[in-house]
């Protein structure tokens, strides 16, 4: 099971393209073991060059490549948030980064779907002035 948010998103993108580790490694000109380690969270924060190679090989769209770059720079992001953005393509990059950077206080955490809904409502109120 991937243990990092970057791993969750990377695995989803690879599986959606139906690539094996070796196929993606060949296309991206990276070591297949390195890609496996990124997906399982034992390696994090890939270099911008490695990310660029992965994005090109995976044909990531702007939202996906922005999210991968963000996750490479923010390895503490919760894997549950990456699961949400994988399952719900309506979550924008802006909503994703606001949820990822959210500070909390208390012993309970809302689920990320609820957080994103809260962010959307507040953003709409904010835009309406």
């Amino acid at each position, binding site marked *: 099971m991937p243990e990092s948010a970057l791993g969750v998103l990377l695995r989803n993108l690879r599986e959606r393209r139906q690539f094996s580790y070796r196929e993606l490694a060949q296309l991206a000109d990276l070591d297949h073991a390195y890609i496996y380690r990124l997906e399982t969270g034992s390696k994090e924060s890939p270099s911008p060059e490695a990310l660029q190679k992965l994005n090109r090989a995976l044909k990531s769209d702007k939202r996906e490549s922005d999210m991968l770059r963000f996750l490479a720079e923010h390895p503490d992001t919760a894997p549950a948030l990456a699961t949400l953005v994988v399952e719900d393509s309506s979550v924008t990059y802006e909503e994703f980064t606001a949820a990822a950077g959210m500070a*909390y206080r208390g012993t309970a955490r809302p689920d990320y779907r609820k957080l994103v809904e809260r962010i959307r409502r507040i953003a709409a109120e904010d835009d309406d002035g």
Partner: protein
Amino acid sequence: MDEFSVVMKARELLRAVGTTDIPPIEAYLKHLNAKLHVEDDMEDGEDGSSFERNGRLHICVNGNQAPERRNFTICHEIAHRVLGLPSEHGHGPAWSYAHKSPNEVWCDVFAAEILLPYPRFKPLVEKSIIGMAAVNTLAKQFQASLPATASRFATVLAAPCAYVMIEQGIVRYSTRSTALRSAGGWISSGTAIPAESLAAQLRAGKAYQGEIEIAADLWFDDWRRSGTLLEDAYHNASWDQTLSLLWFEDEEIPGGPRTIEQEEEEMGLAELDGVLPWPGRSKRRR
């Protein structure tokens, strides 16, 4: 990050805002261009959260919680922004203050500093008669929770004093005045409270009859000074949460630890008299 730099950052904000309002929440929000959202659909244990959008800080607080608790949460979220510290959770049990991540502890320190500003709070504390009644009065005045006010009360007081937060009869955390810290008064988190304490009596259902006297070594770990503490406490039976305030009757630390010489004088070897203690007298006669 350390406590001193956190306090200095909080006082910088106080100076920049320059308000004399109590509580100064509105002034902080305005200064930081932050917007407050009181949410009614938050979970029981969810105190609040904050995020930035287009450079503006949005703070959400739990509308089902008391306004005093919400005030502390707002200040805690402001701390995340001002100190530039991200949230760090999941490093230990949620109830454990001792296992709280450093970022959360620093944000609590900052929050206490701006919710109960030292220049306004300290003179009122020093004028008070020490006890939970004074804490209660100040909490109402500053619209802060009892635990936050009691903790700050013990911390800023010049006299030796400690505040203990107790849950289910177990010390969750304690704070101490500088004088008590210097004297080595320490209460371990995670330990059971003394059975003789007022906190324990109130938990057991005994009616509150005012502060009590209790030996200092019952509360403090490895306390080698003598002395009797005064203890006042407040018990919330529905949450099984007890707040205890401890201080010395004459507001001074009792005499220092016994020196080696004093210990030897009291408990040391008998003075030499020229007679060997071994072998026994009966053997020597033979």
